[in-house]
């Protein structure tokens, strides 16, 4: 199976779409509802990829248990994927290593890649919004998406990212979840006043992708506009 996809990402960074041109017999896997349009040559099969246990792991990773498989059964064809919200799409070529994805960031992958959920233990638990990560490994093309634009950061020393803004990072990086450095007044003041959630401190060599917007603050912004309950 050819694990290299012929693809094109257009309309970046706000209305990004991913167009994949499949050769006869080639396959692409994508999260449910990511498909916007496709040629009639393609067949779509929904199913648990990699068995029930792996799917369960993905569910913990904030992704649906179902991964849709698109196969160019009746000759070459194309399929267009788009994220559910306004935002960016990024391609990453895996060559035997691993990439960690923030929950919800997974979009699509070629054959040759395995996506599994990874329980972060307390590290993930305390980050609130959940630094619940998916791990993609193998050799092939991987696509992930964001809310807002994606920026790539080359980490060569130490770097700090708000956990909510992490989209993906290479697993050559070490990371730990911590509070912001230098905040006086201890944990209470930090948590309640600084407004910056927990941060992830990366060290080592590798790349991190961050998004320029984050859904949670937007939801907090909308909250006061909700109607109040009348008993």
């Amino acid at each position, binding site marked *: 199976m050819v694990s290299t996809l012929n693809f094109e990402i257009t309309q970046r*960074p*706000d209305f990004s779409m991913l167009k994949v041109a499949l050769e006869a017999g080639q396959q692409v896997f994508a999260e449910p509802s990511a498909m916007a349009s496709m040629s009639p040559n393609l067949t779509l099969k929904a199913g648990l990829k990699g068995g029930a246990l792996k799917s369960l792991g993905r569910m913990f990773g904030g992704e649906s248990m179902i991964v849709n498989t698109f196969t160019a059964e009746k000759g070459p064809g194309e399929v267009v994927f788009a994220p559910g919200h*306004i*935002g*960016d799409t990024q391609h990453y070529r895996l060559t035997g290593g691993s990439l960690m994805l923030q929950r919800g960031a997974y979009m699509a992958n070629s054959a040759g890649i395995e996506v599994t959920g990874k329980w972060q233990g307390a590290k993930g638990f305390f980050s609130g919004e959940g630094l619940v990560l998916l791990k993609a490994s193998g050799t092939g093309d991987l696509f992930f998406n964001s809310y*807002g*634009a994606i*920026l790539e*950061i080359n980490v060569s*020393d*130490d*770097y*700090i*990212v*708000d956990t909510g*803004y992490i989209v993906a990072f290479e697993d050559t990086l070490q990371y730990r979840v911590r509070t*912001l*450095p*230098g*905040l*006086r*007044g201890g944990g209470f*003041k*930090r948590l*309640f*006043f*600084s*407004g*910056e959630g927990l941060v992830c*401190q990366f060290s080592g060599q590798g790349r*991190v992708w*961050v*998004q*320029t*917007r984050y859904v949670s*603050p*937007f939801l907090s*912004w*909308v*909250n*006061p*506009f*909700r*109607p*109040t*309950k*009348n008993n």
Partner: protein
Amino acid sequence: MQYDLVCRPASTAVRFALDAGESITCEVGAMIAMSSGITVETTSKSRGGGGGIMKGIKRMFTGENFFLNHFTSQQSQQTLLIGPTLLGDCIHHPLRSGSMVVQGSSWLASSSSIDIDATWRGFTSAIFSGESMFWVKCSGTGDLFLSSYGAIYPIQVDGEYTVDTGHIVAFEDTLQFKIGKAGKSLIGSFLGGEGLVCKFQGQGKLYCQSHNPPSLGKLLGPKLKPR
């Protein structure tokens, strides 16, 4: 201070390159990522008008976030990446002298040399429109970074100009203003969808945003479960 506006215009973020000792004051929650040689300090005093923590808490529960995060670089060549909450643009306004009145949620960041006064009550009557709008007055010399919902467009007012209150991002305080109704009668202007407008007078710079945040809130809010 070096800065760079990236991913314009809908997902704009501001990237700063800070040298040792350089400092920037940001809206709470604005930090996306930064080098580890930057320290953060949270205060409530300059925006809270000396009210201290208790006043700050009170304001927090009224939905207004009056805390400030001060990012100070301890080393050379540190980067700081910040972004606003809503989809939209960010702009840089060099403040040379005088003051700029900024709609609270549009204030994103400013140099530490700029004084931020959140006790400014010039727009009290805007509360009449039922929106929890607040205004901050920025004075001094330095760089000011403003954010918007949608695009930002500048207007050089010379004479008179009318803006819907929800579309104001910031204006120079050389401008006089009057809150009023858009049409002749109050009912008529509400029916026309234009709530309250601000009538500016004089000479000065005005920044407007293409979209109206309270309108978005009123569109989404009723579709959500009651809180």
